[in-house]
């Protein structure tokens, strides 16, 4: 059936894969009708998909450094777009985003704008130039462009801090989903998640991660879109929800006015399990100040353009031109999910709130809600809670509590969809978290093995030895991430936002100016990275941990603004008071700006 090289057959292979996955969903729904238990369906979905990824990971094993670090630089535009989308859309995007929109509305939707707008910066400022550079890792670019091990080391430092903050959240998410779907305790599930992640990346590095990420994208996008379309059709909201939910959005605003946002007393709130919330913000009203919205969007955009696990995906395309187009495809595939998240939040909310719908629970008696099958399940998982604070026997809007993650995970059940959809959603969330974790773990271990071990410690190391070091580091970093994830320090989303701010503080200007400002030199870049990172971190500690008031409305979520501003000023001032880069470096920058010709590192 398949002849010739793997790369030439990609559409066919992934076409068959997608078809096979759809058949699997149909088989599972038949099995559900035939009486298969919920637990078994969940186990089947998660373990079947994870085994497929592991199989791809094993088939993509390699002993060549080009394949291990940059997938042989032969990933076609559209497929790289899909892989980047999976790399990008984390457990936070998949599991937490619709929940955030559900609870916080407009102020939170700055993330939608930020996490997409950043790609314009990636395409216009960085990706094509870094592709022309021909590096293996982001610190590789910094180290070669500015020269010197110190700059390289600083870049690795920022990369590790930002990516590690991010990866613990992803491993945490895989653990949470595995623990719900496979019905095992969380602290064991974290290591099950880790094992799945490592299986995808350890043997084949970037090559394996690329082809598993494409497979994961297909699973996650089906898992996200199917329930959105299904629920929308189910409640008669329209067959294409994205263009047809205006009435529902208006209806929610009407119901919000009717129910009101009543604040619970502190004593009442003390009885609510930690991390659960009630709706306190209007669904579609503009309820954040322009600055709160814009500052968050700016941080996410600049962070997007500085996060190394995204940037390194564009090192795998065959050319500069394809790298540029590939950014467009990445954003297109991301757009498919992001434009659906607010729709899912809308559908979820209307399903719960509207008394005219069979699924509506607000206004029903507390006893009736507590008897619901799905309520009992999610209550047991500590993701939902109701309490009759005012003692009238009826459920009020402010008496229903849910954890943000539950919006995506539980909505199919709430809306009365068959359980097979919930199993599918669990598999999708797992795919989203795994693909991002893989990209991040690989970014860190590649930077440590290539930039620290090979470029600084042992430049004479043979390929085989380098790849062994890379794999050992991969496992160690994975374990470190899982160990911290098991401690459950921060919400999934909290640490994700911090990762963007860290990356932005330390790397945004050193990367951008490396291409766009010839005069930038090593001393300036080092000052920019270190002072940016230090000031951003100090601000975070001050505001978040020491209860500082902050200034200019900059919060713990937007501390990147402080870091990046300091970084920019430091970099310009220090560059200007020190010597200009030598003519070889200036020539290098000139060459980076022209797409044709050999890559910079290919020449050396």
């Amino acid at each position, binding site marked *: 059936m398949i002849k010739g090289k793997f790369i030439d057959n990609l559409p066919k292979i992934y076409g068959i894969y997608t078809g096979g996955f759809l058949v699997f969903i149909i088989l599972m729904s038949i099995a559900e009708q035939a009486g298969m238990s919920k637990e078994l369906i969940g186990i089947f979905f998660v373990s079947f998909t994870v085994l497929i990824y592991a199989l791809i990971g094993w088939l993509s094993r390699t002993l060549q450094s080009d394949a291990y670090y940059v997938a042989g*630089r032969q990933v076609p535009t559209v497929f790289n777009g899909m892989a980047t989308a999976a790399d990008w859309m984390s457990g936070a995007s998949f599991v937490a985003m619709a929940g955030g929109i559900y609870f916080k509305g*407009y102020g939170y*939707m*700055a993330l*939608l*704008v*930020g996490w*997409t*707008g950043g*790609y*314009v*910066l990636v*395409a*216009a*400022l960085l990706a*094509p130039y870094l592709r022309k550079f*021909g590096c293996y890792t982001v610190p590789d670019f910094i180290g070669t462009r500015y020269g010197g091990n110190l700059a390289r080391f600083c870049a690795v430092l920022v990369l590790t801090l930002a990516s590690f903050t991010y990866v613990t959240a992803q491993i945490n998410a895989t653990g949470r989903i595995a623990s719900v779907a496979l019905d095992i305790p969380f602290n064991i599930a974290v290591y099950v998640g880790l094992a799945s992640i490592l299986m995808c990346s350890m043997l084949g590095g970037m090559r394996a991660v690329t082809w598993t990420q494409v497979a994961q994208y297909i699973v996650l996008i089906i898992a996200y879109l199917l329930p959105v379309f299904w629920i929308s059709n189910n409640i008669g909201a329209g067959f294409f929800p*994205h*263009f*047809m*939910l*205006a*009435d529902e*959005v*208006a209806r929610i605003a009407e119901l919000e006015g009717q129910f009101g946002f009543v604040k619970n007393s502190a004593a009442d709130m003390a009885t609510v399990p930690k991390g659960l919330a009630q709706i306190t913000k209007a669904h*579609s*009203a*503009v309820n*954040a100040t*322009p600055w709160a*919205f*814009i500052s968050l*969007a*700016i941080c996410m*955009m600049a962070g997007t353009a500085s996060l190394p696990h995204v940037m390194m995906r564009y090192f795998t395309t*065959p*050319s*500069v*031109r394809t790298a*540029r*187009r590939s*950014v*467009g495809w990445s*954003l*297109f595939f991301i*757009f498919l999910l*992001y*434009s659906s998240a*607010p*729709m899912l939040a809308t559908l979820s909310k209307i399903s719960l709130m509207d008394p005219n719908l069979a699924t509506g629970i607000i206004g029903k008696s507390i006893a009736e809600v507590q008897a619901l099958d799905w309520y009992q399940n999610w209550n047991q998982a500590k993701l939902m809670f109701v309490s009759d604070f005012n003692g009238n026997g009826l459920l009020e809007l402010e008496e229903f509590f849910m954890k943000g993650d539950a919006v995506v995970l539980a909505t199919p059940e709430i809306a009365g969809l068959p359980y097979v959809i919930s199993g599918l959603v669990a598999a999708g969330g797992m795919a989203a978290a795994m693909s991002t974790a893989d990209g991040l773990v690989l970014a860190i271990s590649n930077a440590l093995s290539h930039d620290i071990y090979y470029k600084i410690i042992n430049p004479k190391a043979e390929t085989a030895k380098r790849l062994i070091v890379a794999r050992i580091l991969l496992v160690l970093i994975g374990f470190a991430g899982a160990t911290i994830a098991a401690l459950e320090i921060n919400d999934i989303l909290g640490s994700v936002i911090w990762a963007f701010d860290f990356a932005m503080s330390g790397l945004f200007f050193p990367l951008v100016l490396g291409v766009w400002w010839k005069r930038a030199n090593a001393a300036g870049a080092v000052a920019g990275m270190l002072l940016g990172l230090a000031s951003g971190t100090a601000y975070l500690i001050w505001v978040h941990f020491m209860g500082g008031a902050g200034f200019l409305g900059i919060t713990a979520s937007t501390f990147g603004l402080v870091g990046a501003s300091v970084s920019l000023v430091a970099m310009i001032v220090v560059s200007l008071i020190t010597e200009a880069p030598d003519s070889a470096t200036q020539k290098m920058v*000139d060459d980076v*700006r*022209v*797409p*044709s*010709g*050999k*890559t910079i590192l*290919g020449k050396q």
Partner: protein
Amino acid sequence: MSKQEQHWEKTRGLLFITLAIWFVFSIGIFLFGAEMQESSIKPFGYPLTYWFTCQGSLAIFVILIFWFAGRQEKIDDEFGFTEREGDQ
């Protein structure tokens, strides 16, 4: 001015246009979020600001990147800087 300098000048020009459009739809319009929300323009019936955060800005970014890539390719072609087989 050398060929390479001209190429870079045009590239930089395209960058500024791209960033200007990007700025309008990622930052500019949200300065007027509250005002826009009251507008009688309602794409697909959604309130205007809400629509931009859900779909509008996002879709514009997708289109913008493809437009930018096309323009940049034209600039590269014009100066003969397009990659050829075997460049890598």
